[in-house]
Each structure stands twice: as C-alpha cells, then as structure tokens.
C-alpha cells in the first residue's frame, strides 16, 4: 500500500480522566476532511495530540511518510498549521498577528521580517479579505473577521496540511458559508489538505469529502458523508432522533432534527 500523505496509526493520547485510544486515520493529499462527533467525544483532544500539546501515549503519526516526532518543531510548523478556536490575544494589530505565521521560517537571530515575509502576509490577508483591517487590533474585529485573520496567519506558514478546530463556531450562516467556501477554494486551488473539527453535521456533509466520526474517545466510523451520516449511526452516537434526507441541490445527506414536541404529536397521530 502506498503510504498516504498524513497517517495516524494506532494512536492514543489524553489527560488523566480522558483518553483517546486506537485511532487509525489516513488522509490523502488534497483531501478535505471533517471530524465530527458529540461534545466530549475527543475531537479537540485528537488535535491537541497531533500538535503535541499533550503527550502521545501510544502509536505514531506520519506526515509524508516521516514520523512526526522526527520533525523539529519549526519544520513541523512549516508543514502543518493549526487554527484553534480564537481566544483573547494581546493587544496586537492584524498585520503583526498574521506576520507571526512567518516565524517558523525565521532563523534564530533574525529580528526583522524580510520583505518576502511582509509580501506573503499581505497576499494571504488579501485572499482571506482581512487586508483592509490590517492596522486594526485583533480585538476590534468581529468573530468572522478574527477567524479569517487566524486562517490568514495559518496560511502564511505556507503549510501543506491545515488543521482547524471548529472554524465556524459562533458564526452566523453567512459567515459560516464564507469561511467554508474560502477553505474549499484553498483546498481546490492550492492543493491544501484540510482537516477540520466541525460540529454542524449539515455543513460537514456539504463541504467534506471524508468524514471521521468520534464517539467516547474512539473512532466510531469513517467514510464519505453518505456512508457516515446514516440514520442508524447518528442515532447510536448522538442518541438523538433525526431524519436523514438528501439535499436536492448537492445530493449530499442532510440531517433534520426531531423535537420532543413533534415526537409526541407523531406518536398521537399514529
């Protein structure tokens, strides 16, 4: 078997009290994948494991056939960028924030950004449409703009693999779609491999080629949206009654929720 672009093998990581175990996962170069699962199922923990924020307990991760542990931290940051959920940062301008993405390319005694660094930062700020805010402070931006600036920062790292932790949380539908369209475009045009944690099953279905479903610290199932988002699987993992249909426009699966109120009415009618 040809070694895939990004490969997680029998991986286990965690904290005291919560552990992810036996994770096997492969991503092809240029794929667009989503990690889904209920709250507390281990999606973010996997991310923290991949990025070494928490210690690996077992197993290995390969990037382009090479064990991730063998990369230096800087090398890793040049291959793989992470957009975490935005938290308060220091008072920092958008431009300076995005420029920090060039740090993995700086050598130890380089105190100033090169012209190339500035050009790259500007290019990706334009691509993500935050260039017009470059002199504002990060804290002055709206949630969607902050998310786009964070993506611009990750892109200036010029990674081959982009990891995103819930890039659409706290955003309205307009901004959700804008962010995901942007990611899709990056995936198509730049060949960027994207792996994101995403809560919204319908967005996951619409945008991702491949879905990975987590449940209680284990990988429950993976496959195309059609394979993963079935009535049985969702009911088993999320323990919530749903109806699955097909989006008439994209032919992707769509999940409808069924409220308790409707369940009762449905029961009476029957």
């Amino acid at each position, binding site marked *: 078997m040809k070694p895939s672009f990004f490969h997680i093998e029998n991986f286990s990581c965690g904290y005291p009290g919560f552990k992810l175990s036996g994770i096997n996962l492969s991503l092809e170069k240029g794929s667009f994948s989503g990690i889904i699962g209920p709250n507390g199922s281990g999606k973010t923990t996997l991310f923290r494991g991949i990025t070494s924020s928490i210690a690996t307990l077992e197993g290995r991760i390969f990037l382009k056939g090479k064990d991730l542990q063998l990369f230096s931290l800087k090398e890793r940051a040049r291959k793989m960028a992470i957009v975490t959920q935005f938290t308060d940062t220091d008072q920092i301008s958008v431009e300076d924030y995005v420029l920090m993405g060039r740090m993995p390319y700086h050598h130890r005694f380089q105190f100033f*950004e090169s012209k190339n660094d500035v050009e790259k930062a500007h290019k990706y700020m334009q691509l993500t449409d935050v260039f017009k805010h470059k002199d504002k402070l990060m804290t002055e931006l709206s949630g969607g703009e902050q998310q786009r600036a964070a993506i611009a920062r990750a892109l200036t*790292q010029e990674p081959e693999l982009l990891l995103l932790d819930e890039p659409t949380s706290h955003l309205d539908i307009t901004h959700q779609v804008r962010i995901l369209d942007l990611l899709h475009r990056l995936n198509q045009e730049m060949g960027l491999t994207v792996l994101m944690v995403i809560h919204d099953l319908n967005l996951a279905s619409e945008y991702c080629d491949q879905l990975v479903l987590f449940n209680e610290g284990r990988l429950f199932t993976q496959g195309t949206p059609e394979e993963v988002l079935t009535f049985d699987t969702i009911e088993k993992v999320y323990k919530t009654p749903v109806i699955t249909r097909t989006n008439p426009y994209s032919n992707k699966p769509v999940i409808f929720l069924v409220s308790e109120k409707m369940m009762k009415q449905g029961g009476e009618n029957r």
Partner: protein
Amino acid sequence: MHECKNIKEILIAQGKYIKWMLGLLFMLGLLLAAVALGLSVGELNLSPGSVLRMLLFGGDDGSMEYLLISRIRLPRVVLGVAVGGSLSLAGVILQGIYRNPLVEPFTLGISGGASLGVAFTIVMGLHLSLGSFMLPLSGFIGAFVIIFLVYTISSRRGAINIQNMLLTGVMISFIASSAMMFLMATTSSDNLHGIVFWIMGSLDEPNTGLINLTLIVSLVVLVISYLFVQPLNALRLGEEKALHLGFNTNVVIRVLFILASLLAGICVSVSGVIGFVGLIIPHVLRLLFGSDYRFLLGGSFLLGGIFLVLSDVVARTIISPNELPIGVITGIIGGLVFLLLMSQKRKGK
C-alpha cells in the same frame, strides 16, 4: 546577503521599525542626560561640563570634587542604571511569560524572600559577626530559596503550569512577609530600624565590586533575553499557539523565568526593595509603542535606567541634606505619570 540588500526596503515598508529605532535612540540620549544630571546635582552642584571634563581628561587630581564624583556619585548613578534597567527588564520578561501585564518581579515573592533573608541576618546579628557582605548575600539567598520553591511546586511531570506558578508565588510571598513580621515583632528596636531601612531600598551601596557585578549581569541578561525575543513574541498569542509556531515553550519559559529571577534577586540584594519600576516602565512603553518584545526588552532597560537615576536625583535633593527612600519617589512619580498617560490615552480614543 539577501536580507541585508532588502533591509532598506523593509524599513520603508515597516514604519514600526523606524518608530522603534527613533524611540530607542531618544531614550539613549535621555539616559545620557539623566546620568549627567545625576553626576552634577546634589548637595554640591557642579556644571555637567566640568563633570565631563573631570571624568574624561581630568584624572585624579585629588580635589574634593573629583572624589565626590568618582567615589560617591558615579557608583550611585551606575547602580541606578543597572538596577532600574534590570527591574524593568525582569518585569517585562515576566509579564511576557505569564501573559499578564500586572506581574512584576516582586509579585512572585522574590522581594519577600530577600527581605526575609536580610531580616533573619539582622536579627541573628550575622552581619556584625561575619561582615556586612552578609546583607546582600542573605538577600540573594532568600530570593533564590523562594524562586526555587515557586518553581518546583508549580512544575509537575516536566511541565510548568504557568497559572499555578503565579498563584504559588503570591501565596509564598504572603507567607514570607508574615514570617518577617514575626521576626520584626519579636526583635529589638535597633534591629527593627535596620530591617525597615533595608526594606525601603536605596542606591547607596558602598561596595563597587557589587555595583560592577550588577551592571555586568544586567547587560548580559539583556543580550541573552534578545535570543528569546521571537518565542516571547509568539507567547503573546498563548502558550499553545507559540508551540504551533515551532517554539519549545516549556524550555523558553523556564529559561526566561530563571533569567528574570536572577535579575530581580541581584537587584533586591544590592539595593533593597524598589517596587513599581518593573510594573510601570513596561506598561508605559506598551501604551506608547505597543507590545512587540523586540522593542520592549531594550526599551524597558533604557527607560528603567532613566527613571531610577532621575528618581534618585529627586530622592537625594528634595529634602537635602537628608535623603528620602527612593521607593517613595518611584511610587509617587511613577503612579502619577501612569495615571496621566492612561487618561490621555482614553481621551485620544
């Protein structure tokens, strides 16, 4: 080299670099002016020109003026630059690793430990039996015992929990100050006077070797801290993001913590507790120039030196021939300037 060729374009493209350089140059000029003032002003006022002539060309002519300048004022001004620079550098580094602009070297119990060490020495009379060098030495030991405790209590399984460390420091500092109050309550009033005098802090240090050591350590740490300026900047985004940008945050935080502690420990053992400098100076610079550590490290050192030298001038002239504790001046002037800046910033918005 490729970078050198582009440096001009970078400077033009990045206005902030020019602003930083002008800021640093301006402060360097100000520091020289402050030093000149510190050398000239006192009970006996001399013109800065004659001071300069004496130091550069005069040599030892045995005059009273020469002795006054070289033996009394020069060491004091040098110590002012070194201590002021060190305290604000330590402050800015600690604020960087804790990501909290309200941390200063003495928040972490360093001053408490040093004071306790000195109080213990005075109460036991060790400075009388073993020599006066015991005072700075015991201060230094006290500071480092506390740092060691804070460090070991808050690191677990090879990783440091930075928030734990802050709380631990504050708690240990409370314990140390209670222990010191116990010593003060039970000792004679002579010793009490000695302890209080030391706690109030002063740049009056007779041992020139100690002064030179302080200056050298402060400059060396300044240079070393610049090797960590990139990770320090990355830490502005948080520990996890700094790791994602390729920095080993665990090592960086440890090294910087030890450097800052070393600076604060030496300062407190040479000059006693001079509070507020480490808090106010970085804060003023953040307000004026932003939070990029490439500027803040050097800027804090310079402005800290300026501030302490000028404060010392005020402290020893305002009620001449008596002298005020320098901590009184740093607290009052620093606080007022800070409030002024804050209110102007708000008006500007």
